């Protein structure tokens, strides 16, 4: 099943994992050390993040490192554009309101 990125980042542990490996690629053991939950629980979160293509696995020697899929993270930045659009719309509404208020104060 293909999951979507919003589901991926709906979970606080997964957001924390993203924040961790955004700084540097890490092994699953190193990631798990940052959490109180079990290795298995962390592995499950990593699996979901991989399925969403937000992170990727890279073998280095005998270890596997997890790192961020930068392109995919850009999709999250689309949110920010949405957020900007909200403000733009509200401010345009305020322009209209101010125009009405102006005519009222001039009377």
């Amino acid at each position, binding site marked *: 099943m293909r999951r979507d990125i*919003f589901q991926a*980042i709906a979970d*606080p542990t997964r*957001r924390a994992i993203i*924040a961790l490996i955004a700084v540097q690629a890490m092994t699953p053991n190193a990631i798990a050390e940052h959490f109180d939950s079990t290795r298995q629980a962390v592995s499950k979160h990593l699996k979901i993040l991989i399925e969403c293509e937000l992170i990727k696995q890279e073998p280095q020697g005998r270890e596997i490192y997890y790192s961020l899929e930068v392109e995919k993270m850009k999709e999250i930045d689309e*949110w*920010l554009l*949405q*957020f*900007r*659009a*909200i*403000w*733009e*719309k*509200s*401010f*345009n*509404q*305020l*322009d*209209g*309101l*101010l*125009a009405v*208020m*102006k005519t009222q*104060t001039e009377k």
Partner: protein
Amino acid sequence: METNLLFEFTVNKPEKTVHITREFDADLPLVWDAFTKKELLDQWVAPKPWTARTKYMNFEVGGRRFYAMVSPEGMEKWSVQEYTSITPKTNFKMYNTFADAEENKEMPGSAWDYVFTEQNGVTKVSITIFNDSLSRMEKMIEMGFEQGFKMSIDHLDNLLSTLSQK
């Protein structure tokens, strides 16, 4: 009413801060009122088809505004704003938290700083939003996303009704 009024929107993720600057073609006292009086705020802050409903607002230091953003389906998203500093017609600061309908706050929240300046009848409002955590910032944006989605649907409705009139 298209204008060339300034609109800046920047997000600084490492600093967990959003900066918004917008100019308005009106004198400062009017703009100040639009940002600080509940009956005016409720008329513009929610992007249509959402509406804003302020239950009460005491605009004074230590005072609160308890309000909801209401979706077209009637779903209410409550928030509490607590005013921490007010310099009339110049600046006010508040702390915003999401809340439930019983006014129980969901910490952490975000700190908002509004600065008002006027030049030649154009009023500039600069807003700085600082989030206590990155996940709080994401939640704030997520809520915006939800409203943005409704907004797109709204645009589609308008487009379809325009097309069907032809």
